């Protein structure tokens, strides 16, 4: 069964039809790229899937469970991790604590444990720290655990966002323009990281990206969006030769 199944979703904001009839089926280990010009509704697709806005029509199934009308934090707990186009880390918390926030909803102690030095609290905090350090290590930030995210470079902050999303233990990972603002070396490292995560953790990845070389290289399936509609979807090769895509988007690149 597909880990993520999006069936014919629609979303409008007033007169703007941001998404019209978008469907996707992503399986374990797959990387799906979503490309399209600015304003094509790519981020809106992520926002509907992760529950920030409810879909007007259609269904979103996560590992067979209908999450279309669920609250955002519950969708996350069902196994949806995401990053944001404009990095949204928690200011005032260290790198480790930023990832701990994604573990905390699963931490098994309550309000009394938060106010009092109970043994359960320390055991759970230790368990959380170990899990989080594991994910920080995976993205190569383990030696920056006590650092403030504001003091880190853009590339490192992007990685921290990925580590935080991983701490949600996602079945589906949504990456919204993870390469934006990175230099070519960092893009190379990021590509490797995404491929390694996909191989080792075996979730489904949806990737919005403007850098075509990145998307074309690592995605098995690419969905091309334009003005809220899917104009093509298929393997990178198929999409590349699709006349509609060349006209709407890639044509500009080849000139």
């Amino acid at each position, binding site marked *: 069964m597909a880990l993520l199944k999006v069936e014919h979703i629609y979303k409008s904001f007033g007169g703007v039809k941001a998404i019209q009839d978008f469907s996707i089926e992503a399986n374990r280990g797959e990387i799906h790229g979503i490309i399209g010009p600015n304003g094509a509704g790519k981020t809106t697709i992520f926002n509907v899937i*992760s529950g*920030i806005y409810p879909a007007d029509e259609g269904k979103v199934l996560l590992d067979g469970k209908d999450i279309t009308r669920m*609250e*955002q*934090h*519950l969708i*996350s*707990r069902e196994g949806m991790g*995401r990053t*944001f186009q404009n990095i*949204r*880390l*928690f*200011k*005032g*918390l260290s790198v480790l*604590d930023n990832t*701990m*926030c*994604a573990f*905390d*909803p*699963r*931490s098994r*102690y309550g*309000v009394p*444990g*938060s*106010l*009092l*030095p109970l043994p359960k*609290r320390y055991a*759970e*905090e230790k368990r*959380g720290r170990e899990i989080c350090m594991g994910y920080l290590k995976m993205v190569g930030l383990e030696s920056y655990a006590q650092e403030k995210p504001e003091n880190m470079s853009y590339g490192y902050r992007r990685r921290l966002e990925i580590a*935080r*999303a991983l*701490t*949600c233990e996602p079945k589906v990972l949504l990456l919204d323009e993870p390469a934006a603002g990175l230099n070519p070396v960092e893009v190379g490292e990021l590509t490797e990281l995404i491929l390694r995560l996909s191989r080792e953790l075996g979730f489904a990845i949806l990737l919005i990206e403007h850098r075509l070389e990145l998307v074309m290289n690592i995605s098995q399936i690419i969905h091309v969006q334009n003005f809220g509609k899917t104009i093509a979807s298929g393997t990178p090769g198929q999409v590349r030769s699709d006349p509609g895509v060349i006209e709407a988007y890639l044509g500009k690149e080849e000139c």
Partner: protein
Amino acid sequence: MTLYTHILTQILISVVSVAGVFVLTGMTGMFSLGQAAFMAIGAYTSGILVTKLSAPIYLAWPAGVVLAVAVGFIVGLPTVRLRRDYISLVTLGFGEAITALLNRTTALTGGASGLTGIPKVTTLWSALVSAVLVITLISLFKNSKYGRQCIAVRSDELAAKSMGINVPKVKMIAFLISVAVTAYGGCLYAFYTAYVDPSLFGWKKSAEWVIMVFFGGVNSLTGSVLSTFVLSGLPEVLRFLQNYRAIIYAVLVLLIINFKPAGLLGEWELTPRNLRRIIARGRRVQQPKGVN
């Protein structure tokens, strides 16, 4: 009792209330302009139970705190799902309603002339122990899972939700903890001054606490405690300046907001680790002198 122990006791009672406001405003970024009303609920409930029903203090004080938390839950319920700004409006209205209610119910509360005859129980030492206890509880809370979640909610609600954080629940927990602590401050206060009247608990008091938290540092409990001492102590020290005190207070607050928008201490906390770092830095500065 000398003047200084009197001032110090009052400051320590303020520390208790400001520590409560720190959880709400400093950590979670919610502004309550009716926080003093919860202090009033704590003060009046415990005061009335003891003076009118001659209840023992060890029952009256918890009753005051519990009632304040119960009322806080009802006030919080409609606001925690909304944007954070709305809680300022709701609590402002609620706070003024409580003072009006206290003024009207003369038979029970003594109305505008106040509730008198409360036994004087709070001493400098019990205020000190209370302040230390509350500070300990709240610093434990700040480093716990809910403490982190409060800071995450303040920083970015949308991202917090995307990480599985139940934002309304976290806001409610922060609100109720701050209400409970403030109400306890009210009990301490009533049983120190032996007299309370509604004018003590208006929105100005709540606003003063918010200023103290901001002055000290938005994310620093140490800063909130320090600024309570500075801002409540200052008017006493500057008593000889009479009415000019208010100007100095205002100028000081404006200076901090202009030149240190994150507050006096920003995010810095007095932890054993930070303390050791300061001492180490002090030694390093001294060493070259010794060599020369």
